[in-house]
């Protein structure tokens, strides 16, 4: 059976967990202050330590960030081991991964999604577009960056941001 053979041959694919960039000692509620993590002003909620369900919102992305987010949950990066998991409904989610500039058509949808996510919650803007509109700044359909529409707790820079960077932010929230 091919699948059994593959499983045996490949064994563990996941790479060893990289060291945390906030030196591991910093309490998670200070993680947001870390320069790499970008800029949420308020503290990341302690209630989400150890477990972070995520709902992804594409507010107008070029899909580059989506590929990277997908990679985060692939066997290689395996973000699940840090307690993060993608879910289907914002009601089930603790955090929103928002990618792309916020386009006019997605503005209300983004606000609704944030409103639909129960407290405590984190909004993570993933990628340069989400942070400051990136390439698309000033385009006719663009309303603005994510923080212009909803409060953002953490940001991940990069165009697209590498999975490592995204996972770093997630680990800040889960504290693992």
């Amino acid at each position, binding site marked *: 059976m091919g*699948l059994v053979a593959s*499983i045996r041959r*490949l*064994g*563990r*694919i*996941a790479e060893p*967990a990289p060291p945390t960039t906030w030196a591991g000692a910093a309490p998670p509620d200070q993680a947001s202050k870390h320069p790499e993590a970008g800029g949420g002003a308020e503290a990341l909620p302690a*209630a*989400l*330590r*150890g*477990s972070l*369900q995520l709902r992804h919102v594409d507010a107008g992305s070029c899909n580059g960030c989506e590929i990277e987010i997908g990679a985060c949950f692939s*066997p290689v990066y*395996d973000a*699940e*081991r*840090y*307690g993060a*998991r*993608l*879910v*289907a*409904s914002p*009601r*089930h989610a*603790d955090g929103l991964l928002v990618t792309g500039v916020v386009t006019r058509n997605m503005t209300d949808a983004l606000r609704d999604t944030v409103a*639909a996510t*129960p*407290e*405590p919650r984190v909004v993570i803007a993933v990628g340069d577009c989400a942070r400051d509109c990136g390439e698309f700044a000033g385009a006719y359909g663009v309303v603005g960056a994510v923080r212009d529409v909803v409060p953002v707790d953490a940001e991940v820079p990069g165009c697209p941001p590498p999975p490592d960077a995204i996972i770093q932010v997630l680990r800040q929230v889960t504290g693992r």
Partner: protein
Amino acid sequence: MSGGTEVYAAQAADGFSASGAAGAVLQVAAVVAGAPLVIGWMRQVRARLEGRAGAGWLQPWRDLRKLFAKQDVIPRGTTRVFTTAPLVLAATSLLIAAIVPVVTTASPLDEMGDLFAVVGLLLVGTVALTLAGLDTGTAFGGMGASREVTIAALVEPTILVAGLALSVPAGSSNLGAIVESAVADPGAVATPAAALAFIALIVVVLAETGRLPVDNPSTHLELTMVHEAMVLEYTGARLALVEWASAIRLTVLLALLANLFVPWGIADAGSGVAGLLVGLVAVAAKVCVLATLLAAGEVFLAKLRLFRVPELLAGSFLIGLLAVTASYFLPSPS
């Protein structure tokens, strides 16, 4: 055998033994505490087989702990059904955990309900959740409810026929009696009837607990959901109860399956503290093995199309039917 066991047996006939009561409390506690671990273990096994590191078998507990601290959201237009459904689901699951012989066959609650009552209680929980799904008034809620109910309706014949196959040799449909008769007659486990019933029951467990290939518990795509679609509006503690109860149901059914066919180690009315502990360990081991097998099996399976599910269930019904007729025409040697 000494006269002591006879005393115990008499007590058992009266429906109450101290050991049984203790065992019942123990098994409820064990199931409540252990059910999330079983889920975690299965996810871990699956992660390992997929080459991932996995979140660890404690992850479900972390999830639950977090959910209990999260905000309750009560969507517009829903009624009390939405808010109470998780309680009903949890309550029936707990009751099942108390009735089913997990650690001991002598649960004083055994007389409260037999196999068919347990099946009914499972269905009560399912119904509560489907009503909650409908109560939200969202398209997905209705869709999930519709599918769940369809599957639940179609799985029912298999359950009862498989139950019949188990009850007939034991002469009773009370689970404690069935397991006890399996303990007393180990050879019966190896009969064709038992084997067929086992297969039928596995399908039942898969369908009842929403596992592959009937439902994909880890899907993110609403259109393919069954169970998940119904609970899309739940948050916080209620969602936690739903997930916890689902875990309990899976665990209890796995434990039941294990004890029905491999009853060794289970405590009975005569067991002391040691016996109960042995029973606990035994059942933990058995469930662990079964969970591993189940998780491993799921790696190899894809979800069936919804309209292929009836074929699976019809097949399992046939197997169950064969089990019953086999138990009549090919009785066990004893």
